[in-house]
């Protein structure tokens, strides 16, 4: 399968990439790992006039700790996230989820920024950044802006990102007590259902919870009724079971495909919410 013809350019810096993107008049696309975009181009579902390769821009990849927050650059690969000692120590849910993406070959090329910008309804990282309350840092011709991850994902393959804007990275306050649990589609390794849960626990009591699901509906989103049931309750198996029992009840537009019916997906949202919460509580 061969994509339509396109121009290929390599950007030297973030501003260079923004200028090159603007010059394509909305017809160009950014290319980093290409592991979301290239398959679509091969199927000719995406036919950009130009690809602007941002994978070699210095400073756009890497994982840093800054002012009590962790920053992950947009072109950091899933493999780098999975292997990060800093993340394993401060926020193990992130490398845990990265290790569940695709397969080793895909993790060597696919990037965090690419996964977020593409917003596949079954991608893993959107649920993780929503559960962590991360900010997506974006630069465009007008300068910088930051968007809360839960507002960034809007609909099927639809995010709060202009055609002339670039994700530079994400930033979040790390916490250890978070977990990710996923039902794999065995060939593609996309999530049939994936749930990320982050718990703020003090003295054995859940002060607050953030739970986000992917794979189940058009885009990654929080499960507010689960979060409400956990707040103020002991962080134990009983509370988790009670909260997981209502998981997904607020979801609309549940995905149906050859891998899972609506009924099965709704059942799995409850199962994987429980597992994600158990992982979070055990940390």
């Amino acid at each position, binding site marked *: 399968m061969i*994509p339509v013809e*396109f121009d*290929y350019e390599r950007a030297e810096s973030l501003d260079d990439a923004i200028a090159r993107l603007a010059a394509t008049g909305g017809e160009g696309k950014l290319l980093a790992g*290409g592991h979301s975009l290239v398959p679509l181009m091969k199927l000719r579902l995406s036919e950009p006039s130009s690809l602007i390769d941002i994978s070699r821009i210095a400073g756009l990849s890497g994982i840093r700790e800054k002012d009590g927050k962790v920053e992950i650059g947009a072109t950091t690969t899933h493999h780098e996230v999975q292997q990060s000692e800093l993340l394993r120590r401060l926020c193990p849910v992130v490398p845990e989820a990265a290790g569940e993406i695709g*397969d080793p*070959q895909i993790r060597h*090329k696919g990037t965090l920024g690419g996964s977020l910008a593409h917003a596949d309804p079954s991608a893993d990282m959107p649920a993780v950044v929503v559960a962590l309350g991360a900010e997506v840092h974006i630069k465009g011709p007008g300068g910088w802006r930051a968007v809360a991850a839960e507002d960034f994902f809007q609909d099927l393959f639809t995010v709060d990102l202009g055609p002339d804007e670039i994700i530079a990275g994400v930033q979040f306050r790390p916490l250890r007590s978070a977990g990710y649990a996923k039902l794999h589609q065995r060939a593609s390794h996309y999530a049939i259902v994936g749930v990320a849960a982050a718990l703020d626990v003090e003295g054995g009591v859940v002060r607050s919870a953030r739970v986000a699901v992917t794979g189940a509906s058009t885009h990654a989103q929080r499960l507010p009724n689960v979060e409400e049931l956990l707040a103020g309750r002991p962080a134990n198996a009983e509370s988790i079971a009670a909260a997981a029992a209502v998981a997904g009840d607020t979801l609309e537009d549940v995905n149906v495909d050859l891998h899972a019916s609506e009924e099965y997906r709704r059942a799995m949202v409850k199962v994987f919410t429980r597992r994600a919460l158990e992982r979070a509580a055990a940390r």
Partner: protein
Amino acid sequence: MGQVTVTLNVNGRNRKVTVEPRTLLVHALREQLGLTGTHVGCDTSQCGACTVFVNGQSVKSCTLFAVQVEGDAITTIEGVAKDGELHPVQEGFWEEHGLQCGYCTPGMIMASIDLLNTNPQPTEAEIRDGLCGNLCRCTGYQHIVNAVQYAAEKVKA
């Protein structure tokens, strides 16, 4: 855009290929450099038959444009034997009957080498997980796992 020249190092030799930007790495390797050991299987980044190394890491060459690997070091199945001696993983596939039709084998071997590079003594579960990006439609997975275990033992010895 017409043709562009891409310089890369393939199996230790500096090579130049002239390609369209839309030329996939696997096609550049097979059709321009004659390295037909790398196979196209599913062409949708799932089966892993096209697995090669870019700068020492396994990738699916059906999901990369050749222009993306400008200046990079590529290793294909043709480059893993040294001085006429099979790589331990190749030897393992031979000794443990790790193939039936052989179509997935080059990709399986590259993915297995990548696995052993990062985890020289994997458990059976780690081998199966490490090869989750490679499909064998003869479903000969048990012998493939045996082949990787053979190679891990040989390297340890």
